[in-house]
């Protein structure tokens, strides 16, 4: 986080890598634990960036809607098919990461800007930051996942 605050040097794109935790949480893990821990994670980020609770809300929403993205990316019976998310086909992983990160970033930027007149700014930030975050997350998936394959 302390490092990533400074990554915004390239233009206005701010990547949020901490959502990797929510993405990689075990598929069969306890859902309440995921919800509470992602709330605390988001709140932790908020404390460091003076944003009140916007990261917390975005993270919880992302954690809650995670099964939806798992379903669309890996099929309805994902709970039986998916052992480790990293070991799934790349196409599925990309859909999963993009979908979830878009939801997270959209809620994050809408709450942070919080004005209807600035909708263009919200959409622009969401689009570019989400693409950039997703790219970094996918790279880290490949970097840290290859050993176990």
């Amino acid at each position, binding site marked *: 986080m*302390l490092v990533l*605050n400074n990554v*915004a*040097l390239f233009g*206005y794109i*701010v990547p949020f890598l901490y959502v990797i935790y929510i993405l990689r949480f075990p598929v069969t893990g306890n*859902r*309440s634990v995921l*919800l*509470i821990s992602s*709330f605390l994670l*988001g*709140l932790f980020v*908020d*404390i*460091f*960036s*003076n*944003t*009140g*609770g*916007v990261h*917390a*809300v975005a993270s*919880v*929403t992302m954690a*809650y809607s995670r099964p939806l993205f798992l379903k669309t990316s890996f099929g309805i019976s994902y709970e039986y098919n998916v052992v480790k998310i990293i070991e799934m086909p790349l196409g599925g992983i990309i859909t999963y990461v993009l979908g979830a990160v878009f939801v997270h970033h959209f809620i994050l930027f809408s*709450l*942070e*800007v*919080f004005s209807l007149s*600035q909708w263009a*700014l919200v959409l622009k930030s969401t689009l570019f930051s989400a693409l950039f975050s997703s790219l970094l997350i996918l790279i880290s998936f490949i970097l840290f996942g290859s050993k176990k394959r």
Partner: protein
Amino acid sequence: MQQLINFFIRKRHFLLFCVLVLLGLFFTFQSRSYHSGKYLSAANGISGTLFSWTSGISDYLNLKTQNELLQIENSQLREAVGNVNSIFQSQASQSTLWGGVDYIPARVINNNYSRTKNYLTIKGGEKLGIQTSMGVVSPNGILGITDKTSSGYATVLSILNTQSSINAKLTKSNHFGTLQWDTRDPNIVQLVDVQRLAPLAIGDSIVTGGRSTIFPAGIPIGAIESYELDQSGNYYVVQIKLFNDMTNLGPAYVIKMPDAAEIQELEETIPDEE
């Protein structure tokens, strides 16, 4: 009753989700109201300590540029000392109206410039006499206004924050305007509500107006980059290139106006007629 309990068990994830989202929204709106939500801010002890630790590393890497800046400041100060005598002889400068302004040295340890509501964290808090609503400047120009303070640290509402609005004027003609930021570029801010009669020229410098108890008059802000009339056609919107590089900050000074409390107290006695 059994059905009700079953309902809660079935929907427990959704209920937990709702509770957490409401809690998060509560924190969000609390932090939005100015000067509240003290306990969840970068001014608290834990994050303050961490920030000063990381800034220790980045300070070291920045030493060269910061040294150059300090040298420039030193030379300016020497120049100022040389000029002081002549100023005293000719006319009373505007800052003497305030009966001397205190500059409390502080250091920027965390800096945001990529959001719409940016804050800085400085090392230096209540122990040094830093309080809420004091101006913060760097050797090159203004940075913002202190927001929350703890004993050792303070957060600063940066001029790169959509909530910031600071009184400023043209150096040449004393026409006033309000300094705002449109979030597009961290080195460009906007001066709005400038009378269309004001004589503007690209490259003219902008300084603080001195119409507040936060900044004394005449602190440099930036130079005019371009200007145009707003939609009503009566006021200019002026794009200003900041003298400060807001992406590279180190030493800072917090301005303590000795009469600020007295003036505010006096102004509060005026009945609000709006």
